[in-house]
């Protein structure tokens, strides 16, 4: 039964994903992006990692897509000429398909046996791991975030300076 739900949500996610890239107006792409992230959150829950699902909803849907919608609202781009010319579409479609095929083949080559018995990761375990095994990445990540903030400020300041002709 769970397989059925899993496949259903999977297909839903893929549908929303394809509508992200196919919708002419970016607002609808943003909207379908939100739906696909919900789908993904559902998949994570089915894969027994609720923490990641909640983080996904909180961070991705709650913050990142908000930024996207924010920028879309600021720009309100017209939806004319959404796609590149035909040759590009065909070529890129073929390339993407071929690469995915190869990826799939590469992944299935190294499939490790299903160990099973995975337990849902509680917050405590994540926290302990974060500060023991992954302390260094955690610290570096904090520095990375500070750098990001400084970068965004610089960009914001720059845009203020350039006279909007």
């Amino acid at each position, binding site marked *: 039964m769970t397989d059925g739900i899993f496949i259903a949500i999977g297909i839903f996610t893929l549908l929303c994903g394809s509508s992200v890239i196919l919708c002419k107006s970016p607002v609808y792409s943003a909207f379908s992006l939100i739906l*696909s992230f919900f789908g993904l959150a559902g998949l994570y829950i089915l894969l027994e990692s609720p923490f990641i699902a909640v983080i996904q909803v909180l961070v991705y849907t709650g913050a990142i897509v908000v930024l996207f919608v924010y920028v879309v609202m600021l720009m309100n781009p017209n939806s004319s000429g959404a796609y590149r010319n035909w040759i590009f579409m065909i070529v890129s479609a073929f390339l993407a398909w071929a690469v995915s095929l190869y990826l799939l083949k590469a992944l299935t080559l190294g499939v490790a046996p299903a160990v099973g018995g995975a337990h849902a990761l509680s917050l405590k375990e994540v926290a302990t791991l974060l500060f023991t095994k992954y302390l260094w990445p955690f610290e570096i990540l904090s520095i990375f975030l500070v750098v990001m903030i400084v970068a965004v400020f610089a960009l914001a300041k720059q845009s203020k300076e350039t006279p909007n002709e």
Partner: protein
Amino acid sequence: MSNFSSVYWTQFIAIALIGLGMVGFLIRRNAIVVLMSIELMLNGVNLLLIEAAHRSGSADGTMLVVFIITIAAGEVAVGLGILLNLYRIKHSSDTELYKELQG
């Protein structure tokens, strides 16, 4: 709920997401949609990681996903900042207009 008849499905969905993302940022002319398709690809990767973590039972996959999500957040912030500046100059978000750096 613990294990599925075949692992094949999750990998298929994840790689399909990655493929869609790839097609997205090659086809679309609108810079925002390009960024969105990159996010889509990242999520595909996250799904693969979670599936691997689930299958092998180790927490490393989960931790990696957490890191990826934070980095993605930073990346989108800066990406959209740059996009806004480009928009301020070009009054349009069409990638084919940003081609001063050509031969």
